[in-house]
């Protein structure tokens, strides 16, 4: 019985043969619908910040460098590739590509920056993108408004209205670091 089992165990690999892939010498394409590196289409983006305010890993940032130019920064170093941004984009400007070989020495290789030209509405003073119709309505719906000439800040989370507290918080935002002094009073 025991010997018979050993013979069977030998039979399995001889039946299946070699299953190891020749990757990376022979590329293995990802299947359709794979959630790889997200790619932004700048012609479609209206700068609504829907992706930035719903990113679970908080890797998408927005910055208004002046009244008319909004910068979108995607930092892939913390990205979890959940594809939430692509789901929520009202203009379908984000697609999850099939690119998964993202290891690199330079962070810039996997960082994406977009400069978006925003117009100011003559009636309400808000910024909107002129290139795509009805963009103003969409901005209202998704709720992003921040237009100040002097402040050049990273907004981590957008809100329907400009909140001074939020601005204050983002003004001093830095990554957490270690305490300088021991909380036990011991240096």
């Amino acid at each position, binding site marked *: *019985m*025991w010997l*018979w*089992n*050993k013979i*069977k*165990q030998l*039979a*399995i*690999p001889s039946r*299946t043969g070699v*299953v190891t892939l020749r990757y990376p010498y022979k590329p293995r394409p*990802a*299947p*359709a*619908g*794979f*959630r790889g590196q997200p790619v932004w289409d700048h012609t479609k983006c209206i700068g609504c910040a829907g992706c930035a305010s*719903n990113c*679970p*890993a908080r890797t998408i940032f927005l910055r208004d460098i002046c009244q008319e130019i909004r910068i979108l920064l995607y930092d892939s170093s913390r990205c*979890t*590739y*959940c*594809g*939430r941004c692509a*789901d929520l984009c009202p203009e379908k400007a984000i697609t*999850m590509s099939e690119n998964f070989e993202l290891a690199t020495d330079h962070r810039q290789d996997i960082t994406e920056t977009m400069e978006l030209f925003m117009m100011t509405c003559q009636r309400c003073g808000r910024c909107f993108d002129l290139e795509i119709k009805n963009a103003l309505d969409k901005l209202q719906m998704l709720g992003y408004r921040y237009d100040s000439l002097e402040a050049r800040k990273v907004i981590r989370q957008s809100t329907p209205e400009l909140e001074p507290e939020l601005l204050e918080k983002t003004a*001093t*935002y*830095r*990554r*957490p*670091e*270690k*305490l300088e002094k*021991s*909380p*036990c*009073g*011991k240096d």
Partner: protein
Amino acid sequence: MSRKDELLNLLKDELKGNFLAASSLEENRLFIDIKKEALVETANQLMRAGARYQMGVGYEARKNGRGLAMVHTFAFDADSLLVAIRALTTEDEPEFDSLTPFIPGAGWSEREYIDLLGLHFKNHPHPKRLVLSDDWPEGIYPLRQEVPYDLMPPAAEEVAFRLDEAPPGSSIIPFGPFHACLHEPAHFAVYVDGEEIKGCEYRGFMVHRGIEKLAATELTYNEIPFVAERICGICGSVHSVNYAQAVEAASGLKIPRRAEFIRTIMLEIERLHSHLMWLGVAGHLIGFDTVFMQAWRIREKIMWLAESLTGNRKTYGMVIIGGVRRDIDLTKAELIKKTLAEVEKDVQALEKAIIKDKSIHRRTKGVGYLSREKAKEWNLVGPVARARGLDIDARRDHPYAAYDEVKFEVVVADSGDVWGTLVVRIKEIYEAIRIIHQCLEKLASRLQGSPLAIEIEDPIPAGQQGLSVVEAPRGEAVHYVLTGDDNRPERWRVRAPTYPNLQAVPDMLLNNKLADFPIIVGSIDPCISCTDRVAVIDRRSASGRILSRQELEKLSREMRSKT
């Protein structure tokens, strides 16, 4: 009269003035508020009525009165009822009576809140540090609201975990924190007399990441499923489904039936890959690498299937509150059926080739034995419990998602050893395949075209409790959600299946040979990151002093302004 009403009346009669309120949003859930004096009495009443202890949840209450709250949850498996009792105390007097003398399985739950919330448990037999690192300063309790989520006290030198006294005549052999037979950081100090194990002390929680704190301070409802999925590298879908179910239960959302079936399919695909992975690891741990290679070869097909269904091999990202994100259409269903047919054939061939191999029998039979009574006492769950004759399975006992509509067998073995868990897991592979086939049939025949997720129109009301269980591959996982303001839960507690199972490991190891240590620990399929979840660090500072509340507030403010 239903079992729920019976229990409610019983508790009302017994507790009289100590009974405060009861609420029950769903048919199979009961949430009771009691005075803290009656905590032990209520727990004992419930245990006498046939309950199984699940977990304790501690939190600092903002709604429903301020103070510190402790929730204990119990499962009535025969009546598919989950009961949670909650007691509140003030911050000046953070003391509860301990349940551990009567319910040993409550030991860790209570020790966790001694560390994280600064609670005291009267009569706790072993109130040793559990979660926090040894050099975490005394008097800072991470789950308190005044402590920021990113607080990082400096590391202290020369502090180490102090082991309990070893039994006389035995020597200590340390396993871990990093050891070839452990796949994640955990420390076992094994007391041996010759080759025999005479005891064991566990020091874990080294990968505690503070996820629960993060969820209560930074994340929003629909971001948490993606973080929940990353609690565990193996049963990610279990945690995201479980969290979503708890929120849906708390807010009274009813998700589309199609979404429930898709969730069921994903959970079962996860079980397939997890069981095959365990089988491989178990083979590897007993030095039988043929099993390891072949089981993982079969598992790879499941991984590729998941990749084409969801867009990723492991972190499926399928679940959001209110439904799922991706559909399983007819072409995908065909792909699933084709893969499952191959996998079933391969598993059968592998099973036939190894099931009568003497080397497996000799290494697993009678190893890690635990009697049925002991298993019940430790509240074991999952295949580890089912191998010890406990007929419990959350899929059948507390049906969730679409499990009420599918037929399957709960595999139970009574050998009480590692061999039993192996048999249970192999048989469960076939049951999982059966369940997926049934789900696909129902999806194709009558649920075509229905929506995948509901739109959530109103904000989720604050102060509601939700409790959900999901049978993970390793056993029952429990999530508790207390909804809060600011579009995020006030408290979200995760209890992974390894949490109760690991507590029983010292008992399983007793009087076994040291060489069997890897397979006994491996037999519960320990998931350390699931168990540890929430994060901070464990070295006891010799000269630590307790900060006053004012000092702590000052410290927190400094931290906040700095970050």
